[in-house]
């Protein structure tokens, strides 16, 4: 009897852990791996979304994609948008966090105010900013005028439209980043700063040698998250500019959407999707390979 039990157990034991993770694994397979695999498959076909036939075309979609000047523009826009959004929002958030990381009701109110855009729907935010950026009646031009500066055409000019989008996204995520930075700052023990004061450390040195290294896990987390999010910008483009004027604000995810669901070039859109996946993947791997060494985890 005992022998039998142990045989059963011997069969059961290696299976058991897989059974525990099976539900999660199924969800992961159905909603993550399968769509990615299917997208990769579609990127090698020509399909109009309706026809029952998916014609296999090999790497033709990719060749077309890389030959297309519009796509180059889209890639450039996306990189520019990501670079500026991430660097500006991280920089501004860090400064705000350093200022707001103290007690007092004023600081609490400012923290709440800065965070509030983060909880508002991006579509509402976009509409609000479109109204403010209106070249003739908008608040922003009124402010520029008040300072005696020339008005800007904002979203209607090919030169300034992308900066308008960057402004909106920075405004939206600064609150979240600030909050995470404040949490990071508060986890730095006060004694370390006191020890630095006893060591006669100047303010900038305390910042660069103590605050930044101690904050590196937070900084790293925000860098990765913000980069991935910026690469996937869609709502603001869709609501505010539809990629225009003259493609100047068209970015990867909007480009995929446009080709897939407006022009019904599913294979082509899938190829662009694969490119997005690769870029984000490579960037994230790069972050982990080259930056995580400099991150100090306690």
């Amino acid at each position, binding site marked *: 009897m005992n022998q039998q039990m142990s045989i059963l157990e011997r069969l059961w034991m290696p299976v058991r852990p897989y059974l525990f993770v099976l539900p999660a694994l199924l969800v992961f397979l159905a909603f993550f791996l399968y769509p990615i695999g299917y997208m990769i498959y579609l990127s090698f076909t020509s399909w109009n979304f309706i026809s029952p036939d998916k014609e296999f075309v090999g790497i033709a979609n990719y060749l077309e994609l890389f030959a297309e000047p519009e796509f180059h523009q889209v890639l450039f826009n996306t990189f520019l948008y990501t670079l500026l959004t991430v660097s500006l929002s991280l920089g501004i958030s860090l400064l705000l966090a350093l200022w707001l990381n103290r007690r007092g009701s004023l600081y609490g109110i400012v923290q709440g105010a800065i965070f509030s855009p983060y909880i508002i729907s991006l579509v509402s935010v976009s509409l609000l900013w479109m109204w403010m950026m209106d070249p003739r009646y908008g608040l922003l031009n009124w402010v520029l005028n008040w300072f005696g500066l020339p008005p800007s055409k904002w979203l209607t000019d090919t030169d300034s439209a992308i900066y308008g989008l960057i402004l909106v996204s920075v405004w939206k995520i600064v609150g979240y980043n600030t909050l995470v930075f404040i949490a990071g700052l508060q986890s730095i023990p006060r*004694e*370390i700063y*006191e*020890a630095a004061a*006893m060591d*006669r450390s100047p303010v900038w040195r305390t910042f660069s*040698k*103590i605050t930044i290294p*101690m904050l590196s896990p937070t900084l790293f987390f925000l860098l990765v998250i913000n980069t991935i999010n910026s690469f996937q910008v869609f709502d603001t483009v869709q609501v505010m500019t539809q990629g225009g004027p003259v493609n100047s604000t068209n970015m990867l995810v909007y480009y995929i959407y446009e080709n897939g669901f407006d022009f019904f070039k599913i294979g082509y859109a899938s190829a662009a999707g694969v490119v997005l996946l690769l870029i984000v993947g490579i960037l994230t791997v790069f972050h982990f390979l080259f930056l995580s060494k400099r991150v100090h985890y*306690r």
Partner: protein
Amino acid sequence: MAEVVLKQIVKTFDRQTVIQQLDLTISNGSFTVLVGPSGCGKTTTLRMIAGLETVTEGEIWIGDQKVNDLPPGKRDLAMVFQNYALYPTMTVKENIEFGLKNRKVRKEEREQLIREIAEIVGLSDYLQRKPSTLSGGQRQRVALARAMVKKPKVFLMDEPLSNLDATLRHQMRTELIELHKQLGATFIYVTHDQVEAMSMGDQIVVMDRGRIQQTASPMELYQEPANRFVARFIGTPSMNILTLPDLPGLQLGIRPERVMLIREDGSAFSFHAEWQRTKPDLQRADNPPEGISAEGVILGREVLGAETLYKVQTQLGAFAVKSHSDLLLNQDEKVLVRLRKQDLYFFDAAAGQRVREQDAFARHALEAILSPLTEPAVLGVGGR
């Protein structure tokens, strides 16, 4: 080298006064220990000296300089924090070097100093390690090295040993005493542990509720406590405080280790070396020493090995007795209790101030309770 003087220091946090009118002189080269229960203001006092806390009122002088408005780094002090406060992102070497770099010490000189200090604290092999890979004792040494390398006039230490285990704490205690002798600098040391205070300090400042209760050498604190608080704070177990109907307005203090218990068969317990010297006197019939005699019953005991703690019920009240005898008394056993006159302390029942024997009040009290300590001749059979 410098003397640290606190003049009429007041510290208020959010309208709550935590330090009241504190006057203290810490002489050059002394090992001064600030000791008291938590919330007594000892750490706040240390932090005010360091400059990490502003002074609400009063003046702090280090040497011949008033330092109230001087930033911490300019006061020529070094501090060892309770949790070490090492810079976790820097190596041991960088930790030690940080203060030197800020002082713009030249690189060759820095290397030289770090080598020397690392040698002294035994960290030479760990210079390239991060603090997180070190043990508690090693981190403690890094903190010490970081303080020492600056060659400050005054060392401030805020419970630096409280995170170490008992053995290591003991060892570090000895090392700190040695270090103090070697460096000859002024040490100001904060602890809540009276044993640590007594074993390390040459001047002990006992604090309670934001006031200095007494400043004295360890032996003086033990033998001549200024008030009930100090008397109870120094020594384990605490001094017994008894309220007797014969002594209106006064309280009687008895140290547990100074009580003699005598078994009914005459064998003696719980004696202090002092008692053995008194023994011949006790047996002298013509001029016996004075003291208190009472009868008692053992209520309970704790055997600690080297010593035994008893709880004894007498007509004076119940109190603790510490015995160094290897023989054990059992619960409910009847004993004779003897107290010598010189081991009795009197305190003002309301204010807690010590009332000395010279005081007429105390003399009157003594007359009321003292009697000659005549003892059975068998005394001396027991003991160790």
